[in-house]
């Protein structure tokens, strides 16, 4: 049986937390949540994951599951404390993102009177200058990967560098996972770079769906499939296959 796109993406999301140890792995939405729980269930067992409400849960809580083994309490106030203390790595969505990782979930069009009001900046400003932040973008296209975002709700590398000091030193946008590829900012000048392309996707496909030039270094590998252990964990954590609704093959 060939691996589905959703499973490749789940593993790519999980890999964002590789090496993070005993910190809060926070995933916003189905795929990031699956990624965090998958990482914890397999190669990163010390991670703390939440039920998306106010509790840390131990064991493999299925997405949407209610039978929780609670191991701690994490109300919003403590989420802020934890992230301002740098003990968290969050994966969020983004309606727009630029080459330096400036992101926008707030509004499309001019902020003063937007064409489309979205969520508002939410916790994006605080997240991106305080803890590691990754992004999951289910539809990789030029209208999302833009030259310039309409409102900076998440701080990118160019802006962090300008701030200097503590923020510039600690600023950590880890990776961007999409339906086409895995990208990061590990390049000279922290410009967005292709890390791997998903099976059946070419570097040219990714570039043609991106509104700015991506950094490409040598032969870009293919995103890895799940191991047998990971495939089993994915089934345990998402038995209803909600991941396939976000990412149809």
């Amino acid at each position: 049986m060939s691996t589905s796109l959703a499973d490749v993406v789940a593993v790519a999301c999980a890999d964002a937390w590789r090496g993070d140890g005993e910190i809060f792995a926070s995933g916003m939405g189905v795929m990031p949540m699956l990624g965090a729980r998958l990482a914890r269930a397999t190669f990163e067992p010390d991670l703390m994951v939440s039920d998306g409400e106010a509790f840390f849960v131990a064991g493999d809580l299925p997405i949407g599951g209610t039978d929780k083994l609670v191991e701690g309490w994490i109300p919003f106030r403590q989420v802020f404390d934890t992230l301002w203390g740098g003990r968290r790595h969050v994966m969020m969505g983004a309606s727009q993102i630029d080459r330096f990782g400036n992101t926008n979930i707030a509004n499309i069009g001019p902020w003063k009177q937007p064409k489309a009001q979205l969520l508002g900046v939410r916790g994006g400003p605080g997240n991106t200058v305080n803890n590691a932040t990754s992004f999951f973008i289910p539809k990789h296209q030029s209208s999302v990967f833009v030259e310039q975002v309409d409102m900076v709700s998440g701080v990118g590398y160019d802006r962090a560098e300008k701030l200097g000091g503590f923020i510039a030193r600690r600023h950590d946008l880890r990776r961007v996972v999409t339906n086409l590829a895995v990208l990061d900012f590990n390049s000279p000048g922290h410009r967005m770079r292709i890390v791997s392309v998903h099976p059946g996707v070419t570097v040219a496909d990714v570039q043609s769906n991106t509104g700015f030039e991506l950094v490409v270094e040598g032969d870009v590998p293919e995103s890895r499939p799940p191991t047998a252990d990971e495939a089993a964990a994915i089934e345990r954590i998402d038995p209803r296959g909600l991941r396939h609704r976000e990412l149809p093959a």
Partner: protein
Amino acid sequence: MARPSKLMSEVEAVSTIENGMTLGIGGWGSRRKPMSLVRALLRTDVKDLTVVSYGGPDVGLLCAAGKVRRLVYGFVSLDSIALEPHFRSARQAGTIAEPIEYDEGMLQWALYAGSLRLPFLPTRAGLGSGVMDVNSELRTVRSPYDDGEELLAVPAIRLDAAFVHLNRSDERGNAQFLGPDLYFDDLFLAACEPGRRFVSAEKIVPTADLLKEGSFHTLKINRSMVDGVIAAPNGAHFTTCEPDYGRDEAFQKAYVDAARDDESWRAFTARFLASDEAGYQRAVAEWRAERKEDKK
């Protein structure tokens, strides 16, 4: 001697609110919002409010009623439905004269500074982001210590009035949250001038019963923080009020659907919001009964 009760009705509470006041509303998104107080406020002539909120349908309804001149927010969302339709319309039509958009944590800091009577509190959250671009009044402050770091000085917010909804309260405002999160309800009360700090509660209980349903850790609101107590069963409807009830997802969806156009919104308003709180609760019960009938 028995001390006087602070019990009052929603109508009495909102009658103290005046044009141009700054009102803080507790809860978070579509979770444990003091909706019965908001609904009562909709029925007044009050306008030009500054509203401070982790926004949900409270903000949406007040925007739809044209009562909001300034809005201090980090987001406005219905949680299970990401975008709040009335807030969206108001922003896209430019009818909120002064939107003030903060990072979520900045909002906490503004209320905390207000509650401690400090002029500001420093943070990194907001620096380098669009929040600095669109809020030209924000200032930074340099650490006086060896690090010399430049930090954002989040200005304190003081409120003229505050609404929060809790699970239990005694008649004097010793109030209790039984759900998973207090959110920032204590800060909304603490950042508010005494006089208009209102707690609505699912159930008013004798002081002696406060520890029957939860440990002492749930008593984060004490009577010195509260001026008026409102008995409001189902008062957070249609938002969550765990563990008393969850979100009424079907009704929330009907609310969003009704916001589609002026005609359907007028019909929704006439059916649910035109009379008093008891009328609202009756109309919701009838709406539920009709849906059950349709499903048969």
